[in-house]
């Protein structure tokens, strides 16, 4: 197991290195320099280049960038008056984290309930209804859903605020918009897992022992069905963060996603790079943690794998 974890961390490092190298080369591939002012005399330009290390060859510059990165320095934003990128990310991450956790929390609970009920009432109208909802939730793009939620609930009915971030009621609509995908994914997966578990022989054994139905469902059914759900947390995180890019933009939430989209529009390359690397670290860590967790949680893997 220890060996397995170390191998995985090794791959994670290579993946991150490739992403960092890719984004660095991108920045170098773009035309122009930060000191494009024509009034700037050559000597001063040279001095500036020297000061920021831009006179050195590209591999050396990459080395400097890497060593800064390890120390938590992601450079400065061009657009926001030379403010450090790390600082901007720190300020912005709060709203995104709250929104993301709310959506995943609400979405998971509703999704689990929907999936379990659908499996228990297999081939009834409830099952079909849940399946239709899940297909709709997976298919309809989140920005379409968010747009109409904002229009009907926010503007037409005037029930909830449609933009900004000044308290809990501001987070309701974006949370719903972001949670729809989570609900659908979890419900679909839970339903299939639950149906599979309910067909297993140990359920039959439990029934023949005369255990009550509710006991079988909670103790044997749901517990076993939940284990594989850990595997979809990875894709779910990716989807939630991807979704938050547009949802934050639509609802004007001062989060990291909105910042990222704006930095793309304003060509703030240092900020784009910094956020990209931040997201990459986040994704890769989540995937790693899930893989390790899964090995610990599922006794079958623990015994069979034995790595």
């Amino acid at each position, binding site marked *: 197991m220890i060996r397995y974890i170390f191998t995985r961390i090794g*791959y*994670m490092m*290579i*993946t*991150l290195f*490739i*992403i960092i190298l*890719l*984004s660095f080369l*991108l920045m170098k*591939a*773009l035309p122009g320099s930060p000191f494009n002012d024509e009034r700037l005399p050559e000597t001063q330009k040279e001095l500036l280049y020297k000061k920021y290390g831009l006179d050195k060859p590209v591999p050396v510059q990459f080395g400097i960038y890497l060593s800064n990165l390890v120390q938590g320095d992601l450079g400065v934003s061009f657009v926001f008056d030379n403010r450090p990128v790390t600082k901007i990310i720190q300020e912005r991450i709060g709203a995104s984290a709250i929104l993301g956790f709310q959506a995943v929390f609400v979405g998971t609970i509703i999704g689990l309930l929907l999936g379990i009920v659908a499996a228990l009432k297999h081939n009834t109208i409830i099952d079909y209804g849940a399946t239709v909802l899940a*297909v*709709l939730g*997976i*298919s*309809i*793009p989140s*920005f*379409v859903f968010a*747009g*109409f939620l*904002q*229009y009907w609930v926010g*503007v037409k009915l005037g029930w909830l605020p449609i933009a900004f971030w000044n308290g809990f009621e501001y987070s309701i609509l974006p949370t719903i918009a972001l949670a729809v995908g989570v609900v659908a994914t979890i419900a679909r997966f839970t339903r299939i897992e639950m149906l599979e578990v309910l067909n297993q022989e140990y359920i039959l054994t439990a029934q023949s022992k005369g255990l009550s139905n509710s006991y079988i469902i909670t103790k044997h059914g749901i517990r076993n069905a939940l284990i594989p759900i850990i595997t979809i947390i990875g894709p779910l995180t*990716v989807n939630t963060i*991807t979704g938050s*890019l*547009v949802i934050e*933009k*639509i609802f004007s939430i001062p989060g990291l996603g909105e910042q990222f*989209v704006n930095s*793309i*529009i304003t060509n703030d390359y240092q900020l*784009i790079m910094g956020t*990209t690397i931040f*997201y*990459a670290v986040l*994704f*890769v860590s989540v*995937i790693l943690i899930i893989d390790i967790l899964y090995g610990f949680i599922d006794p079958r893997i623990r015994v069979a794998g034995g790595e």
Partner: protein
Amino acid sequence: MTAKITEETKHYPADLFELASQADIVSDIVHRPEQSFWQDAWRGLRKNKAAIVGLCIIIFVILLAVFGPFMNNHGYDEQNITRTNLPPKVPVLEHLPFLGLNGVDGRGVDQYEKKGITEYFWFGTDELGRDLWTRIWQGTRISLYIAFLAATIDLIIGVAYGAISAFYGGRTDNVMQRVIEVLVGITGLIVNILLILILKPGIISITLAMVIVGWISMARIVRAQILKLKSYEYVLASRTLGASNQRLIWKHLIPNTLGPIIVATTFTIPGAIFTEALLSFIGLGLQPPTASLGTIVNDSYKLLRIYPHGMIVSSIIISLIMISFNLLGDGLRDAFDPKVRK
């Protein structure tokens, strides 16, 4: 039971018995009409009503995407300031006011009458007076084109990579799988964004960006399937009979991997349409006047509060395409799954 009968029959003389001809034994023979791969799949798919509805909608949308832009005389980039933001108006259906297809806008003003326009715009017009019917079908065409192109390239690279990796095994497989393990941690959207920043938005660059990580899941599916098939006896039998590697791959392994490949491709297409729309939404989509479904949704979202018709129509169409492909994918997955077959 059998032992008892033999005990009893021992007493009968042997000439009472007659040898049965091999041809008379019919009860053991299980005979079913031979079915090709496609017949089998179609039989499974036909039972799934949702998948058939999905398939019909997809065909209908493709037909409209091909012929829709020719159904009136307007070009997709033809601007006309005298007819901006007209709501939809459809002949016949205009007499059913609750449908909202009578050319009356949100404030109850008949824009067609006000602007003196006698022509019918089935989906209305946008803020530059471009006909939305033509534009939306033109956009659907481009979105579908990008999606099919990305899915095809994914398919070619993924199948080749997965098949080679699984078939040759050993060191080849090891190296190829390590490469995949590194790449799989890279999130698609990040690479998409980085690449499009370098390449500038366009049909080819968007497709390329999607393909660069898109093939990985296909390669993994194909590898897993071929690894499983490789250990089956019929492959061993074929190899013993002297079949070449080429023949094994093309005649045995690939055809039996077709099911999962088709299912994965069906799910790739809505994914690609969604990614393209998402990129448009964050400002990395196609540049005007070229339109895709994503750019139309994005443009009409800005007008949602005043002129909701554009957003409503384009959202319905993009959602309909996504739903149909997902339904078809689900149906195909069940149709190809031997466990489900009855």
